[in-house]
Structures are given as structure tokens and as C-alpha cells.
């Protein structure tokens, strides 16, 4: 993880500043005073469950929506945006789709041929470039859409859930490409609800919940601040809610993580794990297996909101 303790908004090389943005649709506020910034050569992630306001915020950044109040300042020449809806012509080939956006961005043909080919090759789409995308799988279409977003030599890349629906191998390829952008001095703002994606890629994370940034910072700092203890994950034969009830009655910090999984935060797992198992046994809940892990961003999110990232 990259070391970065300073707040990005005050740095000189900030490419994007979002200041106190409020967005209302009708009477309902979807964004409630969101502020963030992204600097050159860095990746900022918006991490939050579906419906938290990530896409609305990115649409405002991309210039598609106007904020009801607050402001968005982009200090760069070109911004490239990958929307959640992929924005492609299904009747056209992958290459024709790429050419269409290249024309909109006014890109030089020789540049498009070189960079486009490279991106398609990296995402294993080159052999299908001339086929109609109606014949592509869902993952291939998403990769093509991402390749198009990465085509322009932009100062800021705004990527709305770039890896949703991709297999693990493709996801790693995408991560590598995004990391290359950072190495090339580009700024990236991406939204995701995958904690491992945010943890791997982010220099700075904004946790967003119900239209507000509930926490922000470097990943390790967030974990230290909000989820300092080890996590004991218990896979149960019984009902997780019942197990949580038993454990809370014994003073443990526990919560359900699905129908048959409970998680317990522990400062000293070596001593506490036997007590947990014993308590569950006495409460009539049997443990199938357990594992002890370091906390993740999801744990941070749960600690802050009481809700899981996956909704």
C-alpha cells in the first residue's frame, strides 16, 4: 500500500476537487455535502454499497449532472469516464466502438491504432476486435468498455465499478492497467463495492454511505482507526443471529455476516477463541470451522455504519 498520510485536497498536484457537493433529486438529497480530491499519480476509491451515491457523485464529476450546491473543480485538460452502463453500440464491432469514442475525443488515428491495439491485447480482446459486440460475453463487453475509457491520454480517469462482473483473472489485468496509470502520473477516481479492489488499488479511500462520506484516509490508517482488532470468523451449523445473541450476552463484540457466519472482534484471539467456542457450545450453537484474519475495509465500514458493503 502506498504511504500517503496528508489529506489530498491540500496538495499542489490535485487534479480534482469536489467541495461540499449536495445533489437532490426532487426533494430527496442523494449526496449530502460530499468533499473529496484526487491528486496526480494517485488512485482514490469511493467505497460504498449500492445506492450510497457513488454513481451520482461520479456523474457529477464527469460533467453529466450539475450539483445542487457545492462545486467540482477539474484542473486538467482531459477527463475520461467509464459509466456503470457501458455505453457501447451493440451492433458495432469492438474496434468500431473504440473508433467512435476516439473520434469524440479527437484522438489521432495513429495513436488510436497503437494504444487501442495495446489495450485490446492486454485485455485479451484483440482477436475479437472486429466481431460485433453482440457476440461478446458480459465480461468481454465490460473489458472493452474499460479499454475505451483508458484509450485517451487523460489527466483524470473516472471509473464507475470497472471490474463488476469480471472473472478474477480479468480483474487482475484491469488492476494492473489501473496501476500503470498511476505510475504514468495519472489521477484515477474509481468507485467499487469490492473491498479487496479498494485495498489493492487505493492510495486514498472514501467510504460513502447514504450520500455522505463517513470516513476517509489511507487504507491502513482507516483500519487502525476503526477496526484495530483481529477478526475471528466462525462458520456455524446453526443460525448466525442466534450465535451473535449468545456471544453478545457474554460480552463479545460480534455480528452476523450472513446466515451461518458470525464474526467476532478480538484484541487477543489466542485467549478469547476458546472462550467463544465454549460460549457457543453452551448456547447450543455448533461451530463448523473458524479462521482468524486481519480486519478489512468492510470491517471498517461495518463498524462505521452497521451495514455490509455488499448491501
Amino acid at each position, binding site marked *: 500500500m502506498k504511504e500517503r498520510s496528508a489529506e489530498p485536497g491540500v496538495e499542489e498536484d490535485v487534479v480534482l476537487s469536489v467541495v461540499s457537493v449536495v445533489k437532490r433529486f426532487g426533494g430527496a438529497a442523494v449526496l449530502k455535502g460530499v468533499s473529496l480530491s484526487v491528486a496526480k499519480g494517485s488512485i482514490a476509491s469511493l467505497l460504498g454499497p449500492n445506492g450510497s451515491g457513488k454513481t451520482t457523485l461520479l456523474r457529477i464529476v*464527469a*460533467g453529466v449532472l*450539475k450539483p445542487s450546491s457545492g462545486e467540482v473543480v477539474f484542473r486538467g485538460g482531459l477527463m*475520461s469516464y467509464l459509466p456503470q452502463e457501458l*455505453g457501447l453500440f451493440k451492433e458495432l464491432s469492438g474496434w468500431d466502438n473504440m473508433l*467512435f469514442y476516439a473520434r*469524440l*475525443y*479527437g484522438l489521432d488515428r495513429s495513436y488510436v491504432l497503437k494504444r487501442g491495439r495495446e489495450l485490446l491485447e492486454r485485455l485479451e480482446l484483440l482477436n475479437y476486435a472486429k466481431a460485433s459486440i453482440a457476440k461478446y460475453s458480459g465480461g468481454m463487453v465490460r473489458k472493452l468498455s474499460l479499454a475505451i475509457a483508458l484509450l485517451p491520454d487523460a489527466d483524470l480517469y473516472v471509473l464507475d465499478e470497472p471490474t463488476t462482473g469480471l472473472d478474477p483473472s480479468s480483474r487482475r489485468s484491469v488492476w494492473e492497467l489501473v496501476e500503470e496509470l498511476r505510475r504514468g502520473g495519472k489521477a484515477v477516481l474509481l468507485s467499487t463495492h469490492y473491498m479487496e479492489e479498494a485495498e489493492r488499488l487505493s492510495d486514498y479511500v472514501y467510504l460513502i454511505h447514504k450520500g455522505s462520506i463517513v470516513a476517509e484516509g489511507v487504507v491502513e490508517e482507516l483500519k487502525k482507526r476503526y477496526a484495530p482488532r483481529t477478526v475471528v470468523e466462525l462458520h456455524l451449523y446453526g443460525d448466525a443471529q442466534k450465535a451473535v445473541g449468545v456471544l453478545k450476552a457474554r460480552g463479545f463484540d460480534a455480528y452476523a455476516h450472513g446466515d451461518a457466519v458470525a464474526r467476532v472482534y478480538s484484541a487477543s484471539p489466542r485467549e478469547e477463541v476458546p472462550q467463544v467456542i465454549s460460549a457457543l457450545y453452551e448456547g447450543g450453537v455448533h461451530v463448523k470451522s473458524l479462521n482468524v484474519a486481519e480486519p478489512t475495509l468492510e470491517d471498517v465500514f461495518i463498524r462505521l455504519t452497521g451495514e455490509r458493503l455488499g448491501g
Partner: protein
Amino acid sequence: MRLGKALAIAIADFKSLWRERVVVFWCIAWPIIMLVLGAYIFTPPEVGSRATFVVGVANFDEGFKDITSATPLANTNTSLTGLVKERSVGQLLVSTLKNMSDFKVIEYNSTEKLFVDLEKARLDIGIVIPGNFSREIVFGTARLCVYVSGEDPREVQINRGFAQGFFYQFSKEVAVSKVKAIVKSFELFGGSYTEIFIPEINMTLKEVVNRSLMGLANPVDVIIEEKVPQAIADRPFIIGWYTIGAIGMTMLYSGLTFGAIAVVIEKETGRLDRMISAGVRAYDLFLGKTLSATIMMLIASIIIVLAGLGVGARILWSPLNPRDWLVLLNLFLAFLMTMSIGFVLSLAVKSSRAASTLGTVLGLLLAFTTGIWVPKFMLPQPLRVFADAFPVTWAIDAVRAVMVYNEELPNIITTQINVIIATVSFIVLGMVAYRKIIARYVEIV
């Protein structure tokens, strides 16, 4: 740069339209299907040529047996008496009918069989000639029973009219023959008396009798000549009319659909967000979409015209005649009007599927009710008023005026000006609707 963005949208959108089978079907295949139906079912090859009437005749006429050489009438040597000595008037009527190209004559031995065929509409006209027909025609008033049939009330009406016309003429000819016979008899029996000169009227008595009786037989000499528009007289004109109608029909539902779907499809696919973030503005999208749809319609129109020529349409167009370029202008204006209506429709739809359905249904409905696909004279009166007031019809009629009827420029210039004014009004309305609909989805336009 701005034009570059519109052009990029136009290229991609056109390629997308061209590869979409449903679009190709509606823009090219459907109008050709309708045109072929129009040419071979609604306008079969016999249209424009004179109709042939199938006439059934049951002839029971026994002739004029009473005439002998002693009968004074037999010696008058008129065509009628000469004829009735040889054969019956009934036979004369049948052979006359057979010699006329308008009739196909079938003879019957019994009235029952004749009536059966009439009731089954195998015959247009049935004639029953009674036994005393020859005798009564010479010495009295002959009775002839004529029956008309047909596959629909309109055809029955036509057959009745034709039979009445024919027998009116037949009666007149009989009367003239009878007058000639009487005058001949008058000469035969009157002798020198018939040559008395009447100075007040400067005529002989024979001339007075002859003229008076001829006047009774033929009091009004009506001359009926056909002066019909070529469009209804000639099959190539009719198919030419339908060819331009097919283009108009396609423009209606395509323009309405393209206009209604233009923004919502971009929203649904996510292209709208992406284009806006790439610097595309509302007018770039409007221009690009209009351009791609126009190219599509131009190609469709050329193919429809070729198909029309293939099925025998009369289509005139010369690049050397400046007037003929009005055709392209009017087609373009008609399409702009339909797209503008489509933009207004888009305010009422929330999905591309709804937009497509609404555009197609309304477009087809308008094609059949505004004189674009169905001729105005076939429409009920209120729809004729609507058709006369519908500016897209003006544009399509202006195209017909040039390509089918070869009208001179001064005859269409007023319509042309009206079409231009109407198009500008439609575009203003369409743009207002377009900006409203695009603002529904994106806020920076």
C-alpha cells in the same frame, strides 16, 4: 471540432442502424412488400385498361314469323325489317354483344342456370330475351329482363350503370330503325303527297315527318367523352403514386421512431453519459442523429424507387432539371418534420421499447389516414380535411407532382413555400421537445 463530434455520432449511429435487422426490415423490406402488394393486388395489371363485362344471355326470342312477302312492311327494305325476315332481333342482340370487346358473352338455355351464376357473381350482367321480343320490338314495346350482379355493392353499381348505358343506346338504335321504316312506308304509301313543299319552314312534308319522328326517337343527342386524370387511368401512374407513398409511409414511422427513440436509447445504453463527458453537447447529438437517420432514409428511398420502377411505376427524375432537385429537398423536409414529431413524442415515453412501438404504430396510422399511403379520395370526409392540413402530406404530394405527374415549377411553388414554412415550425417544436427530453437525463447540455 464540433462538426467532428456530430459526424462521429452520425457514422456510428448509421452503422448501428444499418446492422440492426429490425430497422432494415421497417425501412426497406416493409415498404417494398407494401409496394409489391400495391402493384399486384391493389393495382392488378388489368387496372387502367377497359373493364370486360361477363354477360349471360338466355335467348328465347322466336323471331318474326308473321312477316311474309305480302306484308307491306316486308317490302320497306329497312335494315330492321330486312333483318327480322332473316333472323330474330334476339339473335341480333346476342351477336352484337359478342362482337363488342367490352363483353364476354355466355349463352344459357334456361333462366335457372343463369340466375344461379348471377347469384354466385360469376356473371356481371344477365339478360333474358322473351319469345315475343322480335314481334314486340317492331309493333310495340319489347320487354327485356336485365339482371346485374357483382362481388360488392360498388361493382353491382358499376354493372348496373354499364347495362343501363348499353340498353339506352340499344333502345335508341331500335327507335331510329323504326322511324326509318315508318318514313319508308310513308314514302311508299304517300306518293307525291310526301313531296309537298312547305315554304314557311323551307322543307317538304317528308322532311318534316322524318325530322319530327327522328326527334322523338332521339330527342337529345348526348355525347359522353372520358376525360380522367392519368393517375387513375394508367397503371404506371398508380404504381408511381404508391411508390412515393411507400417512401412517405416509411418516413412517417421511421422519422417518428427515430425522433422518439433518439435520446432514450442513448440514456439506456449509457452512451449519453459517456458522450456528454467526452464533450458532446445537445446539438451535436441532434445533428449526428438527424444526419444518420437522413442517410438511412435516403438509401431506403432510392431502394424503394428502384423497386417501384421494377414493378412498373412511372417515375421521372433528371439531375439536369433543377426542378427535380426539389424532390430531394421535399423528402428531406418531410423527414425533418416526422423526426420533429418524434422528438415531441419522446416526451411521453420512458423506454426505447415504448418509443419504438409508439413511433411505428402512430406512423403507420398516419400513413393510412393522411393521404400518404391511401389516396385521399378513398378517405372519409373528416380524414380528407386532416390529410389536406397535414404538412408531411404536402411534401409527399410535392414529390409526386414532380416525379409522377411531371408538374411544372409554377404549379408547385406555393406548396413548396408552405412545406418550408411548416418544416421550420416543426423543427422549432421538435427542438424545444428535444432539449426538454435531454435535460431529463443529463443536466449539462
